[in-house]
């Protein structure tokens, strides 16, 4: 596919998603003019784009929709559930058609016409005067969408830094402003001192600007600050009165003519009508999405590799310094070091995306699933701004979808049942994300009926996993939920309950280096907690040495480190080694043995590692310090090596292998279990 087509599809999908989100927002809340306008913007751009690509059916259908929705906008009506469902269906239809265009070109669907008729019927049935629906195509033009009344205006006071230098060019800054909005008015306020006090490099004076932009004040501020460090910038929502306040300006210089292409209007009354709307509009403007560009992950990975190489080259350069290195070179190297570190961190951060990227898919799914099952669900999301590696986010999509579906299907009770139990009819499912101790936690919580542990036990008995007389702990019973072939749903639905799922969820999460746990209280609800690493690509590691070899272990797994001699050591049957760490016996794994090196006579260090609540003591020769490491795949060009999670490149360009802690623990535990079997 050529890049233009790719761009079209990328954008189109974004717009379709945008329409869906807006519809859901409209359904649940009051009709907010800005939100309705957003819906129009999406529909309108989509119509234009598809027409440009020659997909006439798509553009015609969207056009029809747009016209139908025009009534909604004019009358500022809220969406009825019926209408919302129809409009969401329309969005689905667009999505399907869009997919089909990939292979079939300009295709249409007779369903479109029916859907449009239904929508129009519902709309005209609701509105008191029969709405002129499809007959009003000309009313939605782009110019109307960006009409002055909807764009927030700001009063900007810009006072450049006291000292001007080559980097500070007020005109440059003003011209940048015009790229993001329109300068409606620009006044220069002179504050020139008497000649004998005048400094040649000082800046005397400031600008008052009336600025119109769809961007948030914070972005305008950042823009101004970026362009002029040290400058004083004041941004206020534009009010008619504030312009005249600054009237005593001695000169009204039309800087704008030099810097902008927009026709600046100097008269106050042309902009005054906007004042009344400013408050409402600026509040909704803060909802606007972050500006972004699309870059392929391949490019980012290539950039990351390159930066890693620079980091290595930098550390080689740093270590090449010696006593005779002159001051200037040293200073340059130190400065380079700092910049390279910054660069490294920033490139790393590029891969991170807010979880909202993933969470945004769920409100629609919850709505549809709940409607299908006749349940009432209020879906809450928290911590959407938490950032996570993109690949991880994508990999979490399936497990989360499953957990949320399960919560609706098995967790939340039907409304009447909830009423009987004295609960509000509408159940709540809460999806939240947060970061703690270098890991990301994602929680799916519902206030439904909870897990019936007795039924889980019965089912386990039925499956022959335990006997009728067994009464395992709650924890063990919850573990059963994640075993393949387990499902307590009495009736198999097409949504969940096929006995596949929870085990797949667990496996998926574990393959990301994460874990899943569940807590539940019967009658009150359940809580599934996913723990995943912040990113698959970067982690904090602790360097461990044996002989002249260097290994890395994830810092998150390290509990503590001791001198080996200070610990009590026991070998069961002279084989299964345990060490006593403050009264607790922990299996011992010798790293030398693990990597196939001969034992050393010197006592080393014990590093206690923990994962999933299990600990082992790892005997190493020494610790090489903490470092941030980029996780590299061994498998990509070689093979998966058991016992190792991957490899990384050290500061000197050498490769170090990263230990797989869960594998170490498994081996450590296995030997103790073998002992238990013998005993």
């Amino acid at each position, binding site marked *: 596919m050529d890049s233009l087509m790719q761009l079209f599809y990328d954008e189109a999908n974004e717009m379709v998603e945008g329409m869906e989100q807006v519809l859901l927002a409209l359904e649940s809340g009051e009709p907010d003019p800005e939100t309705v306008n957003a819906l129009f913007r999406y529909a309108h751009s989509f119509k234009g784009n598809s027409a440009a690509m020659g997909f006439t059916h798509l553009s015609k259908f969207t056009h029809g929709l747009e016209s139908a929705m025009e009534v909604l906008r004019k009358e500022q009506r809220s969406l009825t559930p019926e209408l919302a469902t129809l409009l969401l269906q329309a969005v689905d239809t667009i999505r399907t058609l869009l997919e089909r265009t990939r292979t079939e070109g300009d295709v249409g669907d007779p369903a479109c016409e029916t859907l449009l008729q239904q929508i129009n019927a519902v709309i005209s049935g609701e509105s008191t005067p029969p709405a002129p629906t499809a007959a009003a195509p000309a009313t939605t033009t782009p110019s109307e969408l960006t009409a002055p009344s909807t764009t927030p205006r700001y009063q900007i006071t810009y006072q450049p830094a006291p000292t001007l230098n080559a980097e500070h060019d007020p005109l440059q800054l003003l011209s940048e402003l015009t790229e993001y909005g329109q300068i409606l008015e620009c006044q220069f306020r002179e504050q020139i001192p008497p000649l004998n006090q005048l400094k040649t490099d000082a800046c005397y004076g400031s600008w008052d600007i009336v600025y119109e932009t769809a961007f948030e004040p914070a972005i305008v501020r950042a823009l101004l600050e970026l362009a002029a460090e040290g400058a004083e910038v004041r941004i206020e929502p534009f009010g008619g009165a504030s312009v005249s306040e600054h009237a005593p300006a001695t000169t009204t210089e039309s800087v704008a003519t030099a810097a902008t292409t927009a026709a600046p209007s100097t008269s106050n009354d042309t902009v005054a009508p906007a004042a009344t709307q400013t408050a409402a509009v600026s509040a909704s403007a803060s909802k606007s999405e972050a500006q972004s560009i699309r870059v392929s992950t391949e490019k980012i990975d290539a950039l990351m590799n390159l930066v890693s190489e620079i980091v290595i080259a930098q550390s080689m350069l740093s270590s090449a310094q010696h006593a005779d290195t002159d001051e200037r070179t040293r200073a340059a190297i130190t400065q380079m070091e700092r910049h390279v570190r910054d660069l490294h961190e920033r490139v790393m951060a590029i891969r991170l995306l807010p979880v909202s990227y993933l969470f945004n898919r769920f409100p629609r799914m919850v709505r549809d699933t709940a409607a299908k099952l006749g349940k009432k669900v209020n879906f809450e999301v928290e911590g959407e701004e938490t950032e996570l590696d993109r690949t991880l986010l994508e990999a979490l999509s399936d497990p989360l979808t499953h957990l949320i579906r399960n919560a609706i299907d098995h967790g939340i009770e039907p409304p009447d049942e909830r009423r009987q139990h004295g609960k509000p009819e509408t159940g709540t499912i809460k999806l939240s994300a947060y970061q703690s101790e270098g890991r990301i936690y994602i929680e799916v919580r519902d206030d439904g009926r909870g897990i019936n542990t007795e039924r889980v036990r019965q089912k386990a008995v039925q499956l022959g996993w335990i006997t009728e007389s067994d009464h395992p702990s709650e924890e063990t019973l919850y573990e059963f939920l994640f075993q393949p072939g387990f499902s307590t749903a009495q009736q198999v639905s097409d949504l969940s309950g096929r006995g596949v799922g929870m085990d797949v969820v667990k496996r998926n999460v574990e393959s990301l280096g994460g874990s899943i746990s569940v807590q539940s209280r019967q009658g009150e609800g359940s809580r599934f907690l996913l723990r995943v690493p912040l990113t698959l690509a970067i982690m904090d590691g602790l360097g461990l040495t044996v002989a002249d070899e260097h290994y890395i272990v994830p810092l998150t797994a390290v509990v503590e480190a001791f001198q080996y001699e200070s610990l009590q050591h026991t070998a069961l049957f002279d084989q299964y080694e345990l060490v006593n760490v403050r009264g607790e016996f922990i299996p011992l794994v010798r790293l030398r043995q693990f990597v196939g090196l001969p034992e050393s006579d010197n006592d080393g260090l014990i590093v206690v590692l923990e994962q999933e609540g299990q600990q082992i003591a790892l005997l190493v020769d020494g610790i090489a310090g903490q470092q941030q490491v980029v996780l590299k795949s061994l498998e990509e060009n070689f093979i998966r090596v058991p016992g*190792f999670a991957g490899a990384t490149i050290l500061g000197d360009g050498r490769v170090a292998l990263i230990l797989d802690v869960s594998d170490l623990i498994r081996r450590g535990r296995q030997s103790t279990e073998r002992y238990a079997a013998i005993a």
Partner: protein
Amino acid sequence: MTITRPTQETTTTTDANTEKYLVFQIGNETYGVPLLQVQEIRTYTPATRVPNAPDYVLGVINLRGNIIAVIDARTRFGLPPLPEDESTVVVVAQVSDKVFGLRLDSVSDVMDIPLDQVQPTPPIASEATHRFLNGMVQVGERVVILLNLREIFDIDALNQMVA
């Protein structure tokens, strides 16, 4: 670190029946691999040992941010390894979708190999090493033994051995 890349013109075949081969000495004989499979030739830098890997895997190195394995050609062919010196090189080659390095004592030349004159290797070599050979050919005074890089790297065997 010096990295030499085969230049553009050497990677193209001159006529239908010949192909460019990178040739080198191992022990007393001359061996060759198709130049098209060779990505680059670099000086040898110590590799990081991979526990439990067979002895012919010297370890892994960093190739511009990617981790690749380095295989010692001598050990792979059952010859005693030589200590490295200035002429020790790693030939970085690609087989299937994996890139790996082959450590050689030195590289000597790029040669046109007349493909229609390649003869099958007589089965005198042991069965284990016979699969490394794609045939042999007389070029002028030299006999060039053509190597099968896929068999030398043999990712499937490695997977089984290490797992």
